[in-house]
Each structure stands twice: as structure tokens, then as C-alpha cells.
């Protein structure tokens, strides 16, 4: 029984780990390439949350529920709640400071 699901579990660990790396790479690319705070906040909150989510899921699978897995799931949940909130707070601060979002044709980068 355990032997039957073990390969699936290992495969899932690898897939989730690689997905996590990929989305974090997207997040980094976005943070580096996008033109203004608001669009950077997009990737910071979303791609990064998903990347962290996938990787933590891989960690939780590897660690098993009885060990560190529970805390990893807690951490995953926590990141999913706090990351968008933090991005929203930062975007709101930028808005309050009067930073106008970049639009097509704007030279500022």
C-alpha cells in the first residue's frame, strides 16, 4: 500500500518543487522588469505566493504529516493570507503618496 503511493509522492515532490522554482523565477523577472511599483506588486504578491505555496507543499510532502509537515502547512496558509495583504498595504502607501500608475507610453521606468 505504502509502496504503491510512494512513487507518486516522490513525483509530486519533484513537480511541486520545480513549479515553485519556476513561479519564483517569474516573480523575480517581474520585480526586475516591470515598470512601476504597482505592477511589481502584482508579481510580488501573486507569482511569489504561488511559488512559495508550491515549494512549501513539496516540503510538507517530503516531511510527512507527523513531523514538520503540519507546521509547513500552517506556514503555507499564513503566507497565503499575509502576502496579498502586505502587497495591498504597500500599493496603498504608494497611492497615498501620490504615485500615479505607469501607463503605455510613459517614459519613466
Amino acid at each position, binding site marked *: 500500500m505504502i509502496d504503491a503511493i510512494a512513487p507518486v509522492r516522490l513525483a509530486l515532490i519533484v513537480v511541486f518543487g520545480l513549479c515553485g522554482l519556476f513561479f519564483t523565477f*517569474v516573480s523575480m523577472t517581474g520585480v526586475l522588469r*516591470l515598470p512601476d511599483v504597482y505592477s511589481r506588486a502584482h508579481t510580488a504578491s*501573486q*507569482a511569489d505566493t*504561488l511559488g512559495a505555496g508550491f515549494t512549501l507543499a513539496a516540503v510538507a510532502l517530503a516531511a510527512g504529516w507527523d513531523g514538520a509537515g503540519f*507546521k509547513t502547512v500552517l506556514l503555507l496558509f499564513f503566507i497565503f493570507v499575509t502576502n496579498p495583504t502586505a502587497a495591498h498595504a504597500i500599493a496603498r502607501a504608494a497611492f497615498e503618496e501620490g504615485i500615479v500608475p505607469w501607463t503605455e507610453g510613459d517614459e519613466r521606468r
Partner: protein
Amino acid sequence: MADGGGLGPKGGSVVVPIESTPTLRATVTHLVESAADGEFSAIHFVVFATWREGDPEAFDREASVDRLLERVSTWAEADLADVDDVDVGDVAVATTVVGGDEYLFGADDYVRELVAYADDHGIEHVVLDPEYTPVGNTTLLQSLEFALSRTDLVVREAPVARPTRRERLRKEATGIRFAAIFGLSLAFYLALGDPFYPFDVVTGVASATIVAVTLSRVSLDADPSLARTPMRLLRGAVYVPALLFEILKSNVVVARVILDPRMPIEPTLNRVRVIVGSGLPVTTLANSITLTPGTLTVRARDGNLYVHSLIPWARDGLFDGSLERWTRFVFYGREAARLPTPRERDDVGIFQGPDATEEYPGARADGGSEREDPSAASSAANDRDDDSDTADGEVTAE
């Protein structure tokens, strides 16, 4: 000089050094009202240039200062239009950048520049924004006032208060809120520790008590309802996989846009009026919108969400309102979910880009136009609460 109406002598000009502060809006209103009462005949808003011509960043900073001055003169015009008994022509409003030839170091440098400017324009009065600190140096204001007091200029501080929401945070303390917070924090503590180890139990009870005493009045604004909470949790359990799928789907789309070397983004700021309750429902919705790639909640006020969208595809998804529908479903059940979408209700607006339908809202420029009663000027800035005052569109289920 006296003009018969008993208003006293028509005052001279006033110079106001400004910077982007939370109290700037109220300071402008105060000055215009003082001018309307005949205290001043001209208002000069000045910004000290803290850079020198030819600095590497001079261009950027000049542009941001120009934006600030533009905003201030718009506010002043709006306020002048509101004051009935003064023609706009009567009070002159000028905006200038002073300095720029040399670096300004201490309060004395600023005062020297200010006095020189005042002399040039025959100005005798200075009004300070209470939050004003040149170059963000928080210790400078006191000494600036001190240095100004040694000159011939008449100095006073604008009587406007810093926006604070301290009293808003405190809610009523009730037994059930206390119990809810206590239970939650104890459960969290024991989940991290070992529920069967007496030391953890004792310290857990102690810290949960502290948390509940200090925070039960802050963190909940309504009693958690025993009848509704389990149903909400159940429906939430249905929502989470749906949300995860949504996140995954749009993440792939956005990832392609970002990794594309041409990067065909078309970011705009949009407004969408949502009909969910205040507090937790609107927080859930705003967080879901932010989690879904391509859309980012920038601001929530009066039931309106200001959402920044990266690509038109994400904006259309937002206006179709599937997340809003889900949130209503989670919090109020199936009937509430069937309301029309924001697009059908025509409760949407685009502020930027080629499809723009509404004017871009300045950060705090709304104080001028939305104001119905005079006292709201200072409370307008007070109003930027995320989720506790969005109650207009409250959905009442059952």
C-alpha cells in the same frame, strides 16, 4: 485700508512652505478659509529645492515637486470655489520652487531662503503645516520655528490635526469576542507546541489571556455568530479550491506575459463597486482579487475597490465579478450570489489608458469634491480605512 464690512484691514501675503504630508490638504483648506475671512490676499506655496541643478536625480525630483505644486493649486482652486463670498480673482495663489542654487543644510539655511523670498514679494506672514519637515528630517520643525521667530516674519502653525484613527480601532468588549480570541490564540499556541505537555498548556493559557485582554476589542468588530460561522467555514472550504484553480489559471497567463520579451502589458487603475458587507467579507474579496494574478487591490473605500490591473484580460475578469459572487456565496449563501455582476450594474470605471471612462482620482484630492459638510474636510483624510467603513452596499441575507 479698512474695508467697511468690519472685516478688519485686508491682510498681506502669506508664504507657506510645503511638502507632501498627511495634513497638507487640511492646511490648504485652512489657508483658503483664512484668506476668505480677509486675513490674507495672496497665498504663496513654496517648496525648497533640496537638490541642485545638475544633480543626477534633479530631473525626477523636480518632476515630483511640480506634481505636488500642481496638486496644491488644484486644491486651493477647489476650496476657493467652495467659499462663496470670495471671487477666485480676489485671492492670488502662487506656487514656486525656491533654492536650487546651493544645498540647504540646517534650519538657518531654510529660513534665509524663506526670508529672501518673502522680501522679494513683500510678504509678512508665514503659516506652517504642523507636519511640515523639510527633507523628511523629523527634528527640524522645532528649530525651524525657532529660527523663524528671530526674523521679522509673523509665524503661526495651521490649526489642523493629523489624521488619526485611534478611536476607530477600539470596539466594544464582549464576552463572546473575548472567548473567540482566547480560543483561537490558545489553539494556535497548542498547535505549535504539544497539547499534552503541561508546561505548554499553562504558558498557552497565560499568553492567550494576555492576547484576548489586549486584542479582543481591536480584532473583531462584531460578535462572531455561532449560527452562521460553521456554514461560512463549510462554504469557505468549497471556495478555497475554486480560488486556487483560479489563481493557477491566471498565474500561467500572467507568467507568459511577464516572460514574453516584448512584455505586452497595459496597466490601468480601475474602480469597481462591490456589494459585499463591510469588514471580513470585503477583506476576503480584496485579498482574493490581489491573489488572482493580474489584479491588485490598491484601495478600498465606501464600497469601491480601486483595483490595478496588469492586462485587459485580468480587468475583464474582474468586471465579470466571479470573485465577488464567490465572496457573497461564502458569507451569505446561495441566494446572495445571484446578484448581477458589476458590469451589468454599471458599477465599474477605468481611470487610465485608451479605454478610460473616469478621471484619475488624486491621492487625497477627493476632499475637495466629495465634501458635503464643512467638517468633512479634515475627516476626509481620516476616512482611509480599509474595511470598516464600506457598509453602503451591505447585503443582508436572511
